[in-house]
């Protein structure tokens, strides 16, 4: 969590947003990570969709996630001017999402490490959920 890490952090491109996902990105702008749960089968899916891919019900609803999880896997890109850590994080809600790990010493990352959501501004005035070690 050094200032150097911050200085080196890359610029995030604007995410692709459509009608199915605009609530997710609006929540991110408000500093919240939200997920989609299906009222018919009770399961959370990721990425969020209008129709549940697990049971085909259209009765899907947004809810606030805990923002907590553990690193499922990661890789630190060493090539290029700005190293960055890509990862999959398994959320407490049971789904795994791709993300970046920030505010960290890249050399001390580990599978199983506990992380929490934080946010980064992107190009095009959007906000992106990322994760940092707790």
């Amino acid at each position, binding site marked *: 969590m050094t200032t150097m890490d911050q200085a080196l952090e890359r610029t995030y491109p604007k995410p692709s947003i459509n009608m199915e996902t605009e609530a997710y990105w609006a929540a991110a702008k408000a500093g919240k990570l939200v997920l989609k749960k299906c009222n018919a089968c009770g399961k959370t899916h990721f990425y969020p969709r209008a129709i549940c891919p697990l049971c085909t019900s259209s009765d899907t609803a947004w809810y606030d996630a805990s923002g907590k999880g553990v690193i499922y896997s990661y890789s630190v890109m060493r*090539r290029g001017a700005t190293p960055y850590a890509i990862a999959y994080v398994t959320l407490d809600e049971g789904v795994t999402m791709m993300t970046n790990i920030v505010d960290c010493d890249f050399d001390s990352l580990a599978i199983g490490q506990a992380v929490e959501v934080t946010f980064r501004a992107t190009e095009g005035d959007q906000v992106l959920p990322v994760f940092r070690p707790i």
Partner: protein
Amino acid sequence: MSRTSKAYIAGIYEHPTRKAIDKTIPQLHMESAIGAVQDAGLTMADVDGYFCAGDAAGLGGLSMAEYMGLDVRYTDSTETGGSSYVIHVGHAMNAIAMGKCSVALITLAGRPRAEGVATLGTRDYGNSLPDLGFEAPYRPVVTNQYAMAAMRHMHEFGTTSEQLAWVKVAASHHAQHNEHALLRDVVTVEDVVNSPIITDPLHRLDCCVITDGGGALVVVSPEVAKTLGDRCAKILGHGEAIKHLNAGQVDLTYTGAVKSGPIAFDEAGLTPADIDYVSIYDSFTITVVETLEDLGFCEKGQGGKFVSDGNLISGVGKLPFNTDGGGLCNNHPNNRGGITKVIEAVRQVRGEAHPKVQVPDCTIALAHGTGGSIATRMGSSTVILGRNDA
């Protein structure tokens, strides 16, 4: 014994170029097509089915069929990245079995080196590509995705960088005999693990080459095969599958080969113990380790041990693989290696591989393609081939 087969691979051609400064992509398609058709002992006028993937410019096969002067009654443009052409072999077999065509041509070509494109760009789908917003901002490139699979495999099974390195070492032992291979130097485990880290835990030498070029296959009916002599390879079994992120239930330790493999083995009535030679898609060393496990050549998690100590080197180990040098050393035309996997498997069952790497009495070969990404969504396809008298 003589096994029945619904279709045969009669013609193969791997374009010799690895950097095509002075040729267009359609030209590479057509040179490859002519090469495969001639190899089969046929002419372009005999082709009545055309198969291509996203590397062919135009709507499916329309523009390329016109460019090449084809007159076809069947077409398929299934696109699953580098595995497309292995899938096409199965689809051609099915079409032939249904009487829809009798001479199917499959082509691939591209020139990422000449055009200075490291890896394939994604077609612009606007905001309709559903996964795009949840992945692209985190900058997943090809290398760091496969790296995450490797990292997880190491975590769960204790796989080491040295074990992964053996895959590259084996490929390099084969590539030294291939005059067209991009990289012909034999490397050691130390060379691989001491090469620069690209993205943890993958080193530069864990990654495949980027090459221009192309390839083509001609799949024919048994009736046509009968007229062409004993260089035709029997298609004994074929399987395909899509594996994806499964609504967030992510597991990077296996590939779509867990499904495509058993389908192909069942259709062939064979098991991994029957296979004399394998072509395994080798975009990265980890791709080979996971795929061999998934196809049943060893237990899940034991792939690292399995590939070690030269076990994949022809004449040395138990399972000779990628005797052309594979994507890791020889050729990965247009970042799509499926067609070269099938081509080398056909060379092996014909007995036409380089004498230094030819598997003695090679009767049954397996070729496997992986397209897309091992860490998100992939198309997997397995084909099992038999020598003409198998």
